[in-house]
């Protein structure tokens, strides 16, 4: 064996003493480079945060107004109105139509004219009577008493209250608000109502419920299929050409534009279930197709991250391959899989294009009853409202965006919570 | 034989062998010189032999220390282990051989009337034989030669034979010349010492054989 030369090799200079001028220069340069790199990183992070703050701030500022509406105070004395009805008749599904036929809209107008004047009464929203009807249906005991209602106004009066509109409108708005009869109140009903023709009467609940139902279908279909596929590909599939082809195909599927899945839904699902256009079931199935590859990919990565020593340990104690997978690999891979699933679901929540193609863009005035009734989803609702002419819809659209963002935040929060709960250190 | 991967191990073994070789050389010289001094009555030489025995003792302690150190630090196995153990025992034996030579030298001034002492002439030959045994056995140790070790063991019977004849000689001499009994008795001890040296050399030869082959030489050789 040759001996290793230790000292007195002419080509190598000794490194000491430490603080020579040459060394000081190099040191200063090194510190500079490191500080610059840190600053660049900080700048990048700062930029991202700034964009995020700008986006959220913009939405909040625009959307806060969407949670309010201008309302006129009208007292309605049902005893004098001549409206009849009781618990039985008012619980029928056609109760609202019955009340309409009894002339409820005119009764409302009558009381409004009496209390606020003809001009003001004209500015009550055409759907305003529906709020009164809803109250009656909810509490039939009201018939025989009188109650104060805050009825929604037209967009013109609403705009005048905020300082825009014709001089007559502005004057009317000022007079009424000075009297205390016109005010901008928090519209909690926004979160309970569904789509409508006037911006004052729209609500987000219909779309919210539709999104929830659709997400449930997506989850129920994509999660088991995705997880089981990931398990099979990682644990059981033999290494070979066919397995590689499948893996490549699934990876490519994750990159396919979402609108293609809409075409798929159109050509397959709607052919099989032609009556279920714009139902959460179809929407969910379409989105499940889109989400499944993401779950497979993250699932496979999570399974790959389980160290082979755990598997070896389980095998050595005499566990069968299935026991190894379900008792050891899956519990350890679950946090990663859950994260991947929720990320995929969050993406599906915000998708509009595929649902456009399968027809979930209809006007749906009531929240869906189940998975097979017509529904719409949050991004679709936003898209539809942004298309409307009435200026009142602008605020409502921003408010809907805020609801969507809150939903997304909740889903991500759930992901983080679940992951932390199930995380095990190995 | 290939070298150890850790060179320091080889250096330690080499040093151990060197110490044994030095001890062996000193022991050989001591045997020859002690008998020489005895036969010629050279008291100066006898004192030198006694003084040099201290060197042998010191070397034995060095061998002890080195052997213990090798066992602790190098964890020797197989033939390395046998060699170290053998070196330890050989050093002890060589030290005793040195003591016997010292003993012989001490008796130099107890012999009177040398010129007429016939048995005196037998002793150098016996001593030479014993000295050769020691020399050969150390060569066998250095070269790890089991065959040479077995030869040394075979030679011991000759030394024993010498002892028996010298013993009978001295006894009859003492009977015939009672006035020389004290000196003749000393010669008895000297002959006994040389015979013991031969036995010790045989012990060393057995250990050399064990170190080289892992087994002791067959009984019949003794």
């Amino acid at each position, binding site marked *: 064996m040759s001996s290793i030369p230790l000292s007195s090799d002419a080509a190598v200079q000794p490194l000491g003493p430490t603080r020579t001028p040459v060394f000081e220069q190099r040191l200063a340069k090194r510190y500079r480079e490191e500080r610059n790199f840190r600053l660049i990183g900080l700048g990048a992070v700062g930029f991202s945060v700034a964009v995020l703050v700008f986006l959220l701030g913009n939405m909040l500022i625009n959307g806060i107004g969407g949670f309010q509406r201008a309302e006129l105070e009208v007292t309605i004395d049902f005893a004098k109105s001549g409206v009849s009805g009781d618990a039985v008749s008012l619980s029928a599904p056609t109760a609202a139509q019955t009340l309409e036929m009894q002339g409820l809209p005119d009764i409302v107008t009558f009381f409004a004219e009496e209390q606020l004047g003809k001009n003001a009464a004209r500015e009550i929203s055409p759907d305003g009577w529906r709020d009164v009807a809803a109250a009656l249906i909810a509490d039939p005991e009201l018939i025989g008493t009188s109650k104060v209602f805050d009825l929604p106004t037209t967009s013109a009066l609403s705009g005048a209250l905020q300082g825009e509109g014709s001089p007559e409108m502005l004057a009317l708005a000022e007079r009424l608000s000075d009297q205390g009869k016109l005010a901008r109140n928090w519209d909690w009903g926004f979160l309970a109502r569904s789509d409508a023709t006037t911006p004052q009467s729209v609500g987000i609940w219909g779309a919210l419920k539709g999104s929830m139902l659709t997400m449930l279908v997506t989850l129920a279909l994509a999660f088991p299929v995705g997880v089981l596929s990931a398990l099979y590909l990682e644990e059981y599939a033999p290494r070979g050409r066919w397995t590689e082809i499948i893996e490549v195909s699934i990876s490519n599927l994750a990159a396919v534009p979402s609108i293609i899945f809409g075409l798929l839904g159109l050509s397959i699902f709607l052919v099989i279930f032609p009556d279920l256009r714009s139902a959460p079931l179809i929407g969910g199935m379409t989105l499940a197709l889109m989400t499944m590859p993401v779950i497979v990919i993250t699932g496979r990565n999570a399974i790959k991250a389980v160290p082979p020593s755990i598997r070896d340990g389980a*095998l050595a104690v005499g566990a069968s391959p299935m026991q190894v997978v379900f008792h050891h690999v899956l519990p350890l891979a679950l946090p990663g899989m859950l994260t991947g699933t929720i990320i995929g679901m969050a993406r599906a929540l915000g998708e509009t294009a595929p649902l456009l193609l399968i027809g979930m863009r209809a006007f749906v005035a009531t929240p869906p009853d189940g998975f097979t009734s017509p529904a719409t989803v949050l991004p679709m609702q936003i898209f539809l409202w942004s298309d409307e002419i009435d200026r009142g819809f602008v605020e409502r659209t921003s408010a809907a965006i805020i609801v969507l963002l809150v939903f997304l935040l909740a889903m991500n929060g759930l992901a983080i919570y679940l992951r932390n709960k199930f995380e095990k*250190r190995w | 034989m290939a070298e150890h991967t850790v060179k320091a191990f080889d250096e330690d073994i080499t040093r151990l062998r060197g110490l044994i070789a030095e001890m062996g050389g000193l022991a050989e010289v001591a045997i020859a010189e002690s008998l020489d001094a005895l036969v010629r009555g050279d008291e100066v030489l006898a004192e030198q032999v006694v003084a040099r025995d201290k060197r042998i003792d010191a070397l034995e302690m060095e061998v002890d220390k080195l052997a213990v150190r090798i066992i602790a630090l190098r964890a020797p196995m*197989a033939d390395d282990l046998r060699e170290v153990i053998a070196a330890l025992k050989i050093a002890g034996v060589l030290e005793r051989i040195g003591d016997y030579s010292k003993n012989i030298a001490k008796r130099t001034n107890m012999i009177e009337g040398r010129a007429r002492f016939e048995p005196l002439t037998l002793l150098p030959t016996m001593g030479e034989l014993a000295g050769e045994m020691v020399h050969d056995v150390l060569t066998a140790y250095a070269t790890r030669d089991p065959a040479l070790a077995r030869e040394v063991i075979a030679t011991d019977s000759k030394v024993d034979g010498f002892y028996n004849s010298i013993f009978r000689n001295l006894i009859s001499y003492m009977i015939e010349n009672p006035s020389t009994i004290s000196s003749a008795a000393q010669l008895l001890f000297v002959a006994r010492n040389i015979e013991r040296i031969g036995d010790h050399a045989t012990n060393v030869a057995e250990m050399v054989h064990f170190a080289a082959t892992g087994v002791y030489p067959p009984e019949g050789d003794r």
Partner: protein
Amino acid sequence: MTVIHPNMADETAKIRARDVCVFYGDKLAIDHVSIDISPNYVTAFIGPSGCGKSTFLRCFNRMNDTIGAAKVTGLIELDGEDIHGNRMDVVQLRARVGMVFQKPNPFPKSIYENVAYGPKIHGLAEKKADLDVVVERSLTRAGLWGEVKDRLEDSGTALSGGQQQRLCIARAIAVDPEVILMDEPASALDPIATAKIEELINDLSGRYAIVIVTHSMQQAARVSQRTAFFHLGKMVEYGPTSEIFTNPIEERTKDYITGRYG
């Protein structure tokens, strides 16, 4: 040519291997190895890195099956039964032939669950009371009971390295195996933990047949009664430990043991 020492007691072999070869793809990792493993002794496999001793050890519980590219030929019998035969269930085999790995790998569960897992899946104990008995017995035999009896619900991975390895041994013992295979069990541990493991092996050697792979010759010398020396995929020499380390027959064995290898 393998040299097998004479004078080894002629007992019935627990594991018998004949002409075993292991291929990784085209590469021959184990070259026609034959050996009888005794049920009464600790057998050590020694040899330089890459000589195949771990590969050969893994043949005994068919762990090489999990490596796709590995192919095993030849005959391996456990108590006279061919472990690659149709009638042998590999899951059952692995319960009868347990294994402890180089790096301690307790499950990320509680200490109790780690030990109870094996008996549960093999149906050896189902009621909590029975499992408690098995867990306590296994941990006691592994020399860990005193240290963990008050914290059985703590995670197995929260223990020190030496304790984790003893936990893995307890886990292997819990299914009542006949053979325990140990692949360099102490190489990741400090000297005190190593000594405890070696003492444990001494205690266990009466009840189980133990085969240990080690790259420390001193450990093989301390712990085993039989030693096999492997070199480049072949078994070079097999004999009683005391003879292998004081008077080996093969030159290659001697060179390796005395540190003259390489």
